[in-house]
Every structure is written in C-alpha cells, then in structure tokens.
C-alpha cells in the first residue's frame, strides 16, 4: 500500500519541475496584459469604431485565453498525463451544449414573451 502511494507521489513530483519562478511571473504578466487589453477595449475604444457585438466577442475570446493560462500553467494541467487533460477538457462539451441551449431559449423569449 505505502509503496504504491510513494511511487505515485514520486511521479507527481517528477512532473512538477516544469513550473519555475520565471515561468510563473511570465504567466502573471500575460494575464495582466490581457486584462489591460480588455480595459482598453471597454474604456478607450468608442462603440463607433468597434461595435458592441465585436467587443463582446473579443471579451469572451480574451477570457478564454486567460482561462487557458490559469488552467494550463497555474493549475498545472498542461503537464499532467494526456489522458487526464483530455478527460477533464472533454467534459466541457456539456457546458457548450448548455450554453447553446439556454441562449437559444433566451433569444426565443426575447421575441415572444415581450410582446
């Protein structure tokens, strides 16, 4: 029992040597830069240059980039076993399905309930 535990722990430690201090700060500055870009889009770019629809698309896209950096590097998922990465990310297909479902529903209500 204790031997298996130890071997697992050793494996885990082995995998973790990819996240150095320099890399941590690099990811931090990427996250900070993306947030600053979001602020610039929100505050400094008038709606006449960039329509709200495009702005919203950019916010969501940049948010997903941020999410990638947090999950991949801070949560260390990028350095885990391939099967674990796939197992976790593929589950989000249900959320994508739910987004499509609920936004379609909301859109329907917008045209039919507000009459």
């Amino acid at each position, binding site marked *: 029992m204790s031997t298996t535990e130890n071997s697992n722990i050793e494996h885990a430690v082995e995998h973790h040597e990819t996240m150095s201090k320099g890399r*941590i*700060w690099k990811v931090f500055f990427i996250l900070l830069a993306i947030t600053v870009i979001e602020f610039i889009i929100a505050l400094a770019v008038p709606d006449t240059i960039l329509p709200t629809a495009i702005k919203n698309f950019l916010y969501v896209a940049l948010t997903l980039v941020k999410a990638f950096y947090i999950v991949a590097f801070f949560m260390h998922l990028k350095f885990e076993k391939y099967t*674990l990465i796939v197992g976790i990310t593929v*589950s989000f297909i249900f*959320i994508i399905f739910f987004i499509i479902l609920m936004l379609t529903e909301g859109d329907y209500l917008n045209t039919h309930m507000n009459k």
Partner: protein
Amino acid sequence: MDTLAKLDEVKTTPWAGGRSPFQVEYGKLMMWFFLLSDAFTFSAFLIFYGAQRFSKLTWPDPDLVFQSIPGITDTGAPLVFVGIMTFILIMSSVTMVLAVEAGHRNSKKEVVWWMVATIIGGFMFLGCQALEWSHLHHEGFWWGAIPSAEVVKGLGADAVSAQQFSNLFFTITGFHGFHVFSGVIINIIILIMAAVGVFERRGHYLMVEKVGLYWHFVDLVWVFVFTFFYLV
C-alpha cells in the same frame, strides 16, 4: 521469448492495472473531479444569467452601475474598482503558485511566507467585495429590491431587467465570494499545518498543491464573472 513472458510484458502499460494511470496522487485527482463539478455549478449560474440577459429588452449598463471607488469617488470611474479586485485575485493566485513551487523544494519558510501572502490577498478581495456589495445595497439593489424607477431608467434598464440583474449579481458574486471565503479558511488551515511542520515530517507538500488547485479555480471563476457582469 516465450508466451508467458509476453503476457507479463502487457501488464506494464499504464491502463493494465496495478498502478495509477493518470500518475496523480489520489487526493489531487479527487480535487480535479470536485472542481469539474463546481465548474458545472458556476456555468449553470452564468448561463442562466446569459439566458436572462438575452430574453430581456433592456439591461442595466455595467459602466453606469459599477462606476464608484469606495472612499474615493461615487461616479465617473467605471471598471476601476473591479480592476483592483481582479488584480488582487490574480496576484494571490501567483503567490499561491509560488507557495507550491517552494513546496517542491521542501522549503518550509518560503511556503509559510507565500501562504500568508495568499491569505492576505484573499482577505483583501473579500473586503473589496464587501465594499462593492454595500455600495450597491445603498443604491437600492438587493435580492428582491431595486432602486426607484427613475434611477433604474438612468441605468438604461426597466423594473424587470433591473430586478433580474440585481438577483443574479448578488447570487453569483455571493456564491463566488463564499468560495473565496472557504478558500481563505482552507488556506489558513494549510498555513498552520505547514508552519508547525506537518508537511515537513510527511516529506512532501502535496496538500499545498491541492488547495492551490482550489484557489486557482476560484480565480478562474472570477475571470468569467468579471467578463459577464462588468465587461459585456
């Protein structure tokens, strides 16, 4: 090579049994499963928020609702305060990952120091959220309560959409804030365990990694809450 030897060879693949195919420690895998389920809960909240927003003819303009910095100005500073909150949370995520990194080197002193920094960041975020909530509450927003029709109109909304916004804002940021609060409590427990040398005796700092996963997840959720409440 005879057949028996070949059969033995098959058993060495990751999925042949007898070893952990993911090569992660049990508690860490369970933390991932918990976070996945929590991600589904938060997604359900945020997707419902999106569906409500799609279904309403108007919606309060976030630049007008959130334009105060408590203690400095009441108007004219959209996004600034929430920007500070976002910065605090990302910063505390960095200190957390630095604690994990120190744990890999079995450096007890550094783990303790970075955990303290993370906890301070967590408390700062909670304090900011308390200010944000009390500001909106003074404006007249609460569960089941909205400001006067005039104010609501000034925000570009109507009674129905303002009420839905208010309910969802307090529910979702409240649920997130509760996660931050739990995270701070768990971080304090881990800090004490690190400080008294529990992990040192154990020989590894895997517990720091596990609470780290939770803490980064809380940060991750905030990234989405920030986008959908304050930017879009």
